[in-house]
């Protein structure tokens, strides 16, 4: 395990992968377990961030001469910003209607 994480040429890709993996599943865990909409949004941000790291890392390690991964990460960040803005608007609306921001209020989705 040691030489997988530390070798002479620097940090191996696997190390980055593990970091983003843990971040990703932490986000998923939060998404499943939290009730507050803001907490769910935080979890979603974690998931997105984990994906961003992956883009950048693969770009750097596999195709260092090109920039696709980096641009993907850039655009993902922009999308995350949009998504956050809309989501927060919705959450505020939910709060205004129900007096709190709990996801259980939104069971009206049920047919």
């Amino acid at each position: 395990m040691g030489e997988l994480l530390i070798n002479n040429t620097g940090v191996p890709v696997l190390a980055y992968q593990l970091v983003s993996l843990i971040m990703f599943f932490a986000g998923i865990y939060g998404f499943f377990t939290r009730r507050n909409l803001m907490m769910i949004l935080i979890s979603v941000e974690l998931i997105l961030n984990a994906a961003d790291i992956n883009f950048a890392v693969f770009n750097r390690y596999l195709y260092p001469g090109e920039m696709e991964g980096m641009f993907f990460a850039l655009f993902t960040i922009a999308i995350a910003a949009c998504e956050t803005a809309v989501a927060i608007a919705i959450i505020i609306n939910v709060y205004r209607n129900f007096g709190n921001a709990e996801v259980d209020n939104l069971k009206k989705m049920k047919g």
Partner: protein
Amino acid sequence: MTEQIIFYLLAIVVTVFSILAVTSKRIVRSATYLLFVLLATAGLYMLLGYYFLFAVQVSVYAGGIMVLFIMAIFLTHKPGNNVSIKQGWRVRLSLLLSVAGLLLCGEIILNNTIGIVRFAGKEEPTMQQIGTAMLGTGKQQYLLSFEMMSILLLACIVGAILIARKTKTEKNEPNETEL
């Protein structure tokens, strides 16, 4: 060697604070932990040599989005209240699935990335390159996506205003909690 030490420091920060962010009972603390995670991620970008990405991450995420978060939390959260977590069996089930997924993906990554350890230098893309790529129309240039993104942002601003706006009828209607 310095690089590796920095990386592991950042990795520990990311790991610990992500887990704390999703398990903390206080929502403001969660947001703060998220901020740390985002900043550490920015550090990882810098370590990879993507300075522009680092700048964007810090300014957009850690700057813009976090401010929005904090404001929204203050708007929708009554001070002193802890945010509840779901019932026990749901938590256990979620934990189980998350760990299972972690192990599965870890297994896949272990099997598939063992050979890829070469680190082909740190030629960071210059700002000129990035600008040309972002505003060009040729191969591997992203003007279309860029413009799409700007339209998306605009739509998003309009949408957010529209959704969050207070309508007159809403004021008059009794809200459902009162019923």
